[in-house]
C-alpha cells in the first residue's frame, strides 16, 4: 500500500511538518510519497525533521511518477484504476474489501477550514481518481492516513473504529482549545495527535492577527 499526499499548502509550516513526521512514523518512509511540490523546490526547502525521517518527495504529479523516481512504484507506473482518492464528498465509504482493488491512496495535504471549503475537489478534478469517503467529519491528514491504514491493512470496518469527534484539549483551569475534527482513539483512551502537536496548539493562542495576514 502506497500513500501519496498531494501537497496543497504553500511551504512547510510547523503544523504540516509535525503531521507528516507522525505519518512517516506510522507507516514507514518508503510507503509515503509527497507529490506536486512547487517546481523550484530543492533539498534545502524540506524541513530537517522530515529529511531525517527519510521523506520521499517529488515535484512531479502523481500520474507522471515512474519506478526511476521511487523503487516502490511498479514499472507500469500508477494506473488510475488502482488509485483511490480519499474525498469527504465521495459517494461511497472506504471498506476493507477495497484493499484488493486499490494499491495507491491519495490524500490532499490541506490545513482545513471549519466548516470545510472542499479543497479536495481540486484534486478530484485534476486527476479523476475514484473517490472514497472516510465518514462525514473532517479529519487531519495524519488521522485520515491512520484510518485508511486501519481499514485497509488491519481489515477493520469504519464503524468498528473508535473515534472521538471535536476533542477539547485543556491547558489549564482557564483555557482550553477545541479541535473541530474527528480523531482516532488510541490504546490509552485519548485521541491520537502527532508528537508535539499539543504544544503547537498551545502556542497558537500566543499568535496575534499580524501572524494571520
Amino acid at each position, binding site marked *: 500500500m502506497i500513500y501519496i499526499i498531494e501537497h496543497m*499548502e504553500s511551504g512547510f*509550516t*510547523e*503544523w*504540516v511538518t509535525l503531521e507528516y513526521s507522525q505519518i512517516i512514523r506510522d507507516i514507514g518512509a518508503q510507503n509515503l510519497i509527497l507529490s506536486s511540490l512547487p517546481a523550484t523546490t530543492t533539498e534545502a526547502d524540506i524541513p530537517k525533521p522530515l529529511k531525517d525521517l527519510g521523506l520521499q518527495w517529488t515535484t512531479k504529479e502523481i500520474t507522471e511518477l515512474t519506478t526511476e523516481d521511487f523503487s516502490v512504484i511498479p514499472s507500469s507506473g500508477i494506473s488510475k484504476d488502482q488509485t483511490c482518492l480519499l474525498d469527504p464528498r465521495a459517494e461511497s465509504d472506504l471498506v476493507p474489501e477495497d484493499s484488493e482493488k486499490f494499491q495507491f491512496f491519495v490524500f490532499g495535504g490541506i*490545513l*482545513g*477550514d*471549519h466548516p470545510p471549503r472542499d479543497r479536495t475537489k481540486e484534486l478530484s478534478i485534476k486527476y479523476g481518481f475514484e473517490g472514497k469517503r472516510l465518514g462525514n467529519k473532517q479529519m*487531519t491528514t495524519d488521522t485520515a492516513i491512520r484510518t485508511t491504514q486501519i481499514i485497509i491493512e488491519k481489515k477493520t470496518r469504519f464503524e468498528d473504529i473508535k473515534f472521538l469527534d471535536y476533542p*477539547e484539549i485543556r491547558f489549564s483551569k*482557564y*483555557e*482550553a*482549545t*477545541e*479541535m*473541530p*475534527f474527528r480523531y482516532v482513539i488510541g490504546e490509552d483512551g485519548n485521541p491520537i495527535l502527532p508528537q508535539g502537536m499539543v504544544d*503547537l*496548539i498551545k502556542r*497558537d*493562542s*500566543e*499568535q*496575534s*492577527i*499580524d*501572524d*494571520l*495576514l
Partner: protein
Amino acid sequence: MVAIISKKRKLVADGVFYAELNEFFTRELAEEGYAGVEVRVTPTKTEVIIRATHTQAVLGENGRRIHELTSLIQKRFKFAEGTIVLYVERVQERGLSAVAQAESLKYKLLNGLAIRRAAYGVVRYVMESGAKGVEVVISGKLRAARAKSMKFHDGFMIHSGQPVRDFIDVAIRHVLMRQGVLGIKVKIMRDPATARFGPKSLPDYVKILDPKEEEDVAEPTVIAYKQAAAEEEAAEEAPVEA
C-alpha cells in the same frame, strides 16, 4: 392624526424600528463602545436612548455627531422635525456588558494583540467588575494552522433554563480579515445577588437557616378561671348521678 394601524401591525412595526436602530448603531458606533438602545414614545416626542461606553465620542464636538445621527434617523424614518430626540447614556458596569466586551476584544485583536493576552485581559476585567462567571471563545482558522476554537473562562457559568434568560448576557462578533473570519463569543453571567428586579438567586439555591435556641418546655399547669361556678356544677352533678 396618524393613520390608524391595527395593534398587531403597530407592535411589529415597533419591533422592526428597534431592530433597524440597533443594527445601525452597532455598525456606526462600534468604536465608541455601543451597548444597546432603548426607545421611549411620549405623546410629543420619540426618545431614543443610546447606551455607550465612550459617551463623549458619541456626542462629538459641541454635540455635532449626535446632531448628525438625529437628522439621519429623522430623515430615514420620516419623523417630523423635533419629534425625535437622541440621548446618550453611559453604560454602568461595562464589565458586565457582553456587547461592550466583545467589541473591545475585537479591537484589541485588530490592533495586533496576541489572542491569549487579549482574551485573558477581557476575562480578568469582567471578573473584577463583579461577574459570577465569564466565557470567551475565539474560533477560526489561523494561517499555517488548522481551524480551531480557543476557549477562555473563569468563574461559574450556567447553560440552560430560565436563569439563562435572567442572568446571562451573550454577544457574538465577526472579525473580518483578508483570509477569512474570526468569530468572537463573549458570555457573561452576572451575580444574581446584585439583581435589581427579578429573582435574586438561582432557582436551586437553598439557604439553610441556623436552628433557633431551644426554649425551656414549661410544666403543664391548669388555669382555673371560675373557681366558684365550677364547684357549684360539680356539687349539682354529684346528687343527680347518685
